């Protein structure tokens, strides 16, 4: 009767971590039972084909952004710079340098305010829980949103977007959208907000009425113009599901350009066409 190696010894041998590989190998080569066992272990332990498993370049870009954010350090760095400067220069020179520096900041800041005014939109991310990214930067607090910002909400995460006091939007993971504001200057000045939703779920609620503001929700399959509407929207590449709770909305299929005026308390499924359903009890 042969002395077969123990199971753990065979596993170590197959994994290449055995300290007795010569001895075990010699036995395996002459024992059909152990050889068959080793083959089965090898099948189970063989690495899968991971050649196509790669993180996207976005991760490295986001990491670089995170490193730079940490390096600039905000006010802390400025204080340190000031201290170093003070040590290097005699006092009168320091005072002169600092005053020139401060004047420069004031001039730049006032210019920047003018530029920045055009880049910001009157909305801010009032709450973020979990993984929420604005332009690939992870967000954890209240921030203003710039025009054409890309917002991404990870799984099991939540972001709340507030547009002044006229609209609040809860965005749950996994969602991806871009925010754009278009302002038309004419006799009747209009501001249009476009929410280009690639995927995800949003719940929108209106607040203070603003008649000159329009909201458009663009998904891969639909364009929805909402007027003072409370709605729930689910979107993916294949279809968009809209439930209008309050207000009015016009729904258009992007593929067929079919247009429907949505009624509250109905569910609309928009793919190549628009289908309307009564809401189930659990959806009301």
């Amino acid at each position, binding site marked *: 009767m042969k002395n077969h190696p123990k199971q753990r010894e065979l596993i170590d041998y197959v994994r290449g971590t055995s300290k007795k590989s010569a001895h075990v190998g010699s036995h395996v080569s002459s024992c059909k039972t152990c050889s068959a066992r080793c083959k089965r272990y090898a099948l189970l332990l063989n690495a899968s084909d991971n050649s196509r498993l790669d*993180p996207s370049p976005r991760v490295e870009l986001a990491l670089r952004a995170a490193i730079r954010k*940490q390096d600039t350090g905000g006010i802390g760095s400025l204080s340190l710079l000031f201290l170093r400067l003070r040590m290097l220069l005699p006092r009168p020179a320091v005072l002169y340098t600092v005053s020139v520096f401060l004047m420069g900041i004031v001039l730049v800041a006032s210019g920047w305010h003018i530029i920045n005014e055009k880049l910001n939109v009157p909305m801010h991310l009032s709450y973020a829980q979990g993984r929420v990214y604005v332009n690939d930067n992870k967000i954890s607090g209240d921030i203003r949103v710039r025009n054409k910002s890309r917002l991404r909400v990870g799984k099991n995460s939540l972001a709340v977007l507030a547009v002044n006091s006229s609209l609040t939007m809860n965005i749950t993971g996994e969602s991806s959208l871009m925010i754009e504001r278009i302002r038309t200057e004419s006799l009747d000045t209009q501001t249009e907000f476009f929410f280009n939703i690639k995927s995800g779920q949003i719940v929108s609620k209106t607040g203070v009425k603003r008649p000159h503001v329009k909201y458009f929700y663009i998904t891969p399959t639909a364009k929805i113009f909402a007027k003072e509407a409370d709605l729930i929207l689910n979107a993916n590449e294949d279809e968009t599901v809209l439930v209008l709770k309050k207000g009015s909305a016009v729904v258009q299929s992007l593929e067929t350009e079919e247009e429907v005026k949505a009624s509250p308390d109905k569910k609309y499924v928009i793919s190549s066409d628009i289908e309307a359903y009564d809401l189930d009890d659990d959806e009301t």
Partner: protein
Amino acid sequence: MLNEQRIIEVYRLYSKELFVYIFRLTANQEVSEELLQDCFENLIKYAGKYGIEDFNIRAFLYKTAHNLSVNHLKRRKKIDYVLLEEDGDYYSPDRGVEEFKAKELQGKIYQLLERLDEKSRSLFILCKENGLSNHEAAEVLHVSERTVRRKMADILEYLEAELRKTGYF
């Protein structure tokens, strides 16, 4: 403290293997990317506070990846391992029967692993996909090498038994 150049070097060195590990645990590309980013951000913070030797970086990253992934798994619902084969892995004449069977077996293995606790699943993936030694795996999981060997034996026995029932062996 690690400078930007060094961090990016480290990222390029280890991101692939870490991503494979995280993805095999979570089966979700986007989540895996987020967790991968978190791993490296944790490394930056840790290195900034305490400093870290080059030879410890890999182990640190694996431990972080493990902790983040397990925490994520505990929060989420059941993983659908069909996703792993979403890239159109069906039999085709170009692929060959053997390759197709191997892919099918891998899918089945991961479905069976789903029934195990997160630590066992992690251990198996670390050894199978990432090729970690008993010592390295023990360090990541905060267990002894003896435990690693024992658990691997238990997992393989379990997989063998289940696959035999379904005709793979």
